[in-house]
């Protein structure tokens, strides 16, 4: 693992990656964003990432498939699911399949930073997350 946490953000809405990238860079993560799940998985296969943040509802390959494929390749990677269609069944299903966290949209960047900090800790690393930020992603 490099000194900086590598984070892959996948969401078919470009605005999400655009807004989250600076929010996570601010706490010392190295972030790459994708809107196409296939390209995101290719990048994951090629480089590997410490943390994957993925939307669930996407065309062709959905977030649950991304979760399964990422964990099949690397059990150590922490996968954080984000969705605008959060429901108890879906949340339980994602956790059961090995997701590290599940976040309902809209959320504040702090919610994701907090989840990233937890994931970093689980990976034996750390990020410099301390200050709250009221913005909503």
């Amino acid at each position, binding site marked *: 693992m490099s000194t900086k946490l590598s984070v892959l953000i996948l969401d078919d809405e470009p605005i999400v990656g655009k807004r989250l990238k600076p929010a996570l860079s601010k706490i010392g993560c190295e972030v790459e964003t994708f809107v196409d799940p296939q390209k995101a998985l290719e990048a994951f296969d090629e480089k590997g990432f410490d943390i994957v943040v993925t939307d669930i509802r996407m065309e062709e390959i959905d977030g649950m498939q991304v979760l399964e494929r990422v964990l099949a390749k690397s059990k150590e990677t922490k996968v954080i699911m984000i969705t605008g269609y959060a429901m108890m069944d879906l949340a339980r299903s994602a956790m059961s399949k090995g997701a590290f966290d*599940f976040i*309902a949209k809209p959320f504040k960047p702090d919610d994701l930073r907090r989840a990233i900090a937890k994931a970093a800790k689980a990976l034996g690393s750390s990020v410099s997350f301390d200050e709250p930020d009221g913005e909503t992603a």
Partner: protein
Amino acid sequence: MTSILISSDNPSMGKAIARQVGEALGYDLVGDALLSEVVGTTGISKRDFEKALGLEGPPPRPGRGMGAGLVALQAALTERLLGDNLVVDGLGAHLHVRGVSHILTIRILADFRSRAHHLAVDRKISPRAARRLLERRERQIQQWSLSVFGVDETNPSTYDMVINLGNIDEERAVKTIADTAGDRKFVSMTYSMKCLENLALADRVRARLVADFPGVEVGAEDGVVKLLLAKRWFGWQRTVETLRETVGKVPGVDGVEIHTAPLTKREGEADMTGS
């Protein structure tokens, strides 16, 4: 972090299972002690709480008394559930805390024949009369839980797991519950904690309002409290100001929205008087 809500059609049996599950997992037990705390702060007797929760005597008619007591109990309960690893014994928790994915809900059923037998002996009535009495009570409980909480307590799909102690022994039941609690499905996550925080905030506000505004419905999302008032009455503007001021002082409240349309309607459709 997971919490477990255990309820039963035989409260003493539910209590025994809850205690054993708590011991098996090393979780704190929430039950009588919390009820005693709320009894102390509200001055309402424990027996009245038990009646209001449908645990003793015929279920109360909806809207009859105990509003403030139940609201206080629910607020105390959700506040506790924000903490780590708990087993809740009864307290009507299964009827109030819904849709929080890291909370495992368990229904313990006592053997029907054995319950009927004990009732027949206690009341000196025939076994057939005892069975009829139990069946009638179940129908009453079903109607009561639906009308007061919008949840059918007798419907198995209300719970994550239903265990019939007529067929499964206590030891096995405790082990099954403890094993299930270890499933990743019931691990807390950002989403489930938000759901719980929203409920706890709504409960805190409800507890603050119940004495002066018992008819106000309360919802909360991310620090923003949404109040639903059934109708506009004389002195509306003053009421709105009072509500806004009162609710604004509740810890955790960042904003207040006052609606006169159902909370389920989309924001744009609601008649908001300000935010």
